[in-house]
């Protein structure tokens, strides 16, 4: 076929697009940074903590003694404190957060929605050190004087767990696991509420209408159709809160009591991984076994948080495949 003049003018027009190429490369770098930073942090924590794992073996994870004087370090008290406070915080914040979200999306008068939504977001904007001070000066005395004695009276009949964990039968000290959990619950509440609200707002109207058209009440449509449809995303909201509660440091340091030993009740002064690291890091000498133990704790926290997020992802994926 004969090449026309117009077609011939295309020949030889190919030339490098400099801006395109450099844009392409810079985007690639931006993407790579995430992976590099993640991998290097994990590596540094592991290398720094390796000495602890070498000295105490894998038993570092479940050894219950943490004693800087004798240089014996076991992670279990801190791990226990972390898990108990985070889980208790979720147990407290989850129903309230869901309630707030459902109130906002289903019942709240239109005019009140925006102000309430903003109030919830402001709750998330309070710096954690402010939560810490509030917890220490307001919440802890209140817990010690009113709530904990009352709880003891009501729940003293609960038999102890094993022979060392007495639930509510303990001196009401104020600072300790329970107060830390409450502060954490208030801190993660806005995340759970806001994420749940967004999930509820994103459910198609058609789904609700479909349920209404079948003669379902608002409650039946919500529990029978809408919530099952977004179950995974709702769990995602909870895990987001859990992830935050696991790593929260400053507020917890104020109210957990900072006693690195196995808790013997829900009132017991205890410690979380983050609070132990924050309290001891300034004094840990370079190269010491103490520093290694702290970095080892950091590594464990990293892995636990990562596991929680991975689990959340897995739940969400199963939802989509179903």
């Amino acid at each position, binding site marked *: 076929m004969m090449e026309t003049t117009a077609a011939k003018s295309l020949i030889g027009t190919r030339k490098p697009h400099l801006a395109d190429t450099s844009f392409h490369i810079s985007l690639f770098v931006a993407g790579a940074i995430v992976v590099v930073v993640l991998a290097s942090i994990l590596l540094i924590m592991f290398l720094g903590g390796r000495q602890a794992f070498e000295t105490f073996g894998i038993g570092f994870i479940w050894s219950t003694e943490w004693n800087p004087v004798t240089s014996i370090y076991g992670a279990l008290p801190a791990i226990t404190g972390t898990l108990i406070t985070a889980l208790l915080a979720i147990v407290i914040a989850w129903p309230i957060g869901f309630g707030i979200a459902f109130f906002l999306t289903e019942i709240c008068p239109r005019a009140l929605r925006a102000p309430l939504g903003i109030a919830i977001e402001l709750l998330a904007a309070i710096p954690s050190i402010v939560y810490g001070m509030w917890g220490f000066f307001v919440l802890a005395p209140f817990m010690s004087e009113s709530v904990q004695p009352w709880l003891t009276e009501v729940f003293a009949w609960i038999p102890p767990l094993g022979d060392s964990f007495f639930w509510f039968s303990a001196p009401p000290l104020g600072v300790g696991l329970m107060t830390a959990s409450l502060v954490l619950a208030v801190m993660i509440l806005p995340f759970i509420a806001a994420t749940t609200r967004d999930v509820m707002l994103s459910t198609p109207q058609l789904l609700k209408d479909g349920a209404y058209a079948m003669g379902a009440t608002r409650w039946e449509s919500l529990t029978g159709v809408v919530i*099952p449809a977004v179950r995974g995303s709702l769990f995602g909201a909870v895990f987001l809160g859990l992830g935050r509660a696991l790593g929260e440091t400053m507020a917890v340091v104020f109210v957990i009591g900072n006693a690195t030993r196995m808790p013997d009740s829900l009132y017991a002064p205890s410690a979380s991984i983050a609070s132990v690291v924050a309290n001891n890091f300034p004094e840990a000498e370079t190269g010491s076994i103490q520093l290694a133990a702290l970095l080892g704790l950091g590594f464990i926290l990293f892995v636990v948080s990562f596991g929680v997020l991975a689990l959340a992802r897995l739940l969400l994926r199963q939802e989509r495949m179903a």
Partner: protein
Amino acid sequence: MSEPAPQSDRIPSIALRAPAPANAAAPLSPTRIDVRNVNAFYGAKQALFDVNLHIPDNAVTAFIGASGCGKSTLLRCLNRMNDTIPGARVDGQILMDGVDINSADIDAVSVRTRIGMVFQKPSPFPMSIYDNIAYGPRTHKLTSSKAELDELVERSLRRAALWEEAKDRLDKSGLGLSGGQQQRLCIARALAVSPAVILMDEPCSALDPVATAHIEQLIEDIRKHTCIVIVTHSMAQAARISQITAFFNMGQLIESAPTADLFTAPKLEQTQDYITGRFG
């Protein structure tokens, strides 16, 4: 409920053609829904003006008209779906079997169990095919045993001509079905609670011609025992499947008549203009 309509009443379900004279002559069943002086408002905006209409039982009544003419609004008045829209208000009377569905002592929820609805977009619930059909019976506790529920699910799927395609995958998600199958699933779901009336809001507008033909055949079968009201943008569809057609414009019911009469000899010029495509 009542004996099947005579065979002569049947319209070829695919081709667009002037309805057979037999259709026009067929005697209509008694009125199931009586719409009296209905005005509907969304906030300050009035969407329906003084609508009066008799909707017969065991027949398909089609609402036609341009977008925004009020036909969907009237449809949503008939099962009180407008209750779920903030600011919506309905005046006048809508009598089903002589009872005003808007009267103070009647619960919208119980109205909707008597009047099923199928939407423009297929709206299967994100659960298994079985659970979709079982949703209504379970919610309203219509069955007392698993066997009874199984049977009701099968019967509903059969009536919606979906049983053969679905029987081996009852435990699979309803979302895995094709668009046309999903729409039949929604019809089966509505049928499972044995409603007296089924409302359909453009049920075929998201479907291809083959799936549309399936649904139209299905409508023709169901209407022998049920009152069906359908909103459609396709005049060809209205002509194919309905016995009564009501033409709406700007919130007013312009003309309603047996479908054959309305499409061949409309009384008003406005109707004539719309059905011949000369509409504003």
